[in-house]
């Protein structure tokens, strides 16, 4: 028993190092260098060219190009509503509406959100973006439970960005009129059918926000490579 424990202790304290692997064939020889845990080892093939197959060669020579669609599954996006109205705004009272995106994609998707301009009334007054309880931004969500006024959004989905720690975490919207870059709200890299992203928009108006406001929310939705 003590010998067994001693062997185990040696295995734990002195883990065996990674070894290089050499591969050979008649055409080529490859050698990968050591790749050790927690470090970026190098294991590289020399640069090489892949010729066309015989079938491809015929098409390439006659047309000058080959175009290949990689996957038969199309990229499908459903947006539940293209126009949403908040209820009558009441100062100090939170007002929520939601919209749902459903995405089907062969290799996952990426979704970005932005607003064309801030919520603006016909007279030109602006309902400002939320700063949440402790200072959120269009790139970072924070808790928004206080009476701090403004406009923001939160998300419900299986692939939430890491900053949305709970359902009461909100972000402001990236404002394209201020050259802010659309913010990523979803990123997946697996095949999916009807992956759902629910976006909840919240307005908490102040005493002076008594008008009606509007803006355009933009969703940029791309398949993953």
């Amino acid at each position, binding site marked *: 028993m003590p010998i067994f424990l001693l062997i185990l202790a040696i295995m734990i304290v002195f883990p065996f190092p990674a070894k290089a692997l050499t591969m050979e064939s008649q055409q080529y020889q490859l050698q990968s260098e050591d790749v050790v*845990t927690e470090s*970026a080892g190098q294991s590289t093939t020399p*640069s090489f060219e892949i010729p066309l197959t015989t079938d491809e060669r015929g098409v390439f020579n006659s047309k000058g190009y080959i*175009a290949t669609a990689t996957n038969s599954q*199309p990229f499908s*996006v459903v*947006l539940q509503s293209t126009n949403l109205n908040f209820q009558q705004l009441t100062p100090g009272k939170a007002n929520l509406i939601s919209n749902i995106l459903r995405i089907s994609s062969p290799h996952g998707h990426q979704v970005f959100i932005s607003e064309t301009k801030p919520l603006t009334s016909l007279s030109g007054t602006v309902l400002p973006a939320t700063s949440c309880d402790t200072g959120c931004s269009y790139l970072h969500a924070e808790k928004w439970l206080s009476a701090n006024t403004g406009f923001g959004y939160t998300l419900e989905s*299986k692939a939430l960005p890491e900053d949305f720690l709970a359902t009461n975490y909100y972000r402001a919207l990236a404002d394209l009129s201020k050259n802010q870059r659309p913010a990523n709200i979803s990123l997946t890299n697996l095949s999916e059918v009807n992956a759902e992203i629910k976006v909840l928009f919240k307005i908490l108006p102040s005493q002076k926000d008594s008008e009606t406001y509007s803006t355009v929310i933009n969703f940029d939705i791309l398949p993953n490579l």
Partner: protein
Amino acid sequence: MRAKFFCTIFIFFTIVLLLPKISKADSMHLIMSPSVLKVVAKPGTTPHLSFKLENKGDPALVTIQILPFTPIGNNGQVVVGKKLDATIPFQPESSSIIFGTPFLLKSNSPQDISIQMSLPSQLSEKDYYFTVLASTTPFPESEGSTALQFSTRIGSFVLLSVTSNGAVEQRLSIPLLSVPRSTIPLLSSVYESSTAIPLVFMAKNNGRNFVTTQGSVTISGWNQKQKYNLQEATVLSGTQRLLIDGSTCKSDCSKTYSLILKGFFIGKYTVTASVSSQRGERAVTAQTTFVAFPFKLIGLLFLMALAFLWLRKNLVKE
């Protein structure tokens, strides 16, 4: 009686005509295919690209646009550029589409998007990446209450490799194969046998052209040998990609880890990762190891042994 009959017919048809609009109020459903079009072309040619856009929602104002994109991150993410430079001119082949000008896309009416790409004869032999975007323009807003209108922009990718002889240059490497450190204090290189063990496997393409990879990971130890085939991934020129096994690593896990090993491991295991182009040419391989020890089982056995000894000692006394 006759007036009542016509009145009923009128109400019926009014409801029938209004019903579809009530049940599908201003929804958007666009389908674009293919999601990725790979093109290998000679300089000086004019490749024809074909996409299909289908509207399964309400009629929409749609604008077609072509913009370049650049890859970012390790998960196949991209950033769409703001402007297309004049290096490669694109022209729609159908007169019904003008790039940058909205057109009405009716419900359930597929729209072919045929594009001609003119490659100058002096074009550098390398990769060019574009996205064909279809964006919807919201209809005029309703007044009276605070409103949000929604515009969507969906896209398909065009990966273009320009080559005069048809051969594409690829140079794969494995910049990272790692079993992240365990959370066991002072023994971060050892895993508890019963816990799930994550693995990170990154492939990099240092070649001139994009490559679609096929990869695998083999775990071998004294008691088992298991092979995992990884999901194919397109690695663009000069970028790296996390290769993943979708069956063990789902949703959020797949953004950080390649696969999650589940089972009961004891001792030292060797992880062999291999990646090659889709056609299997020139696989590049790397290895790493991890050690697992059944701390919980040993602890339990130790406690049971102590309890047994204590019980025996006390029972003997009695």
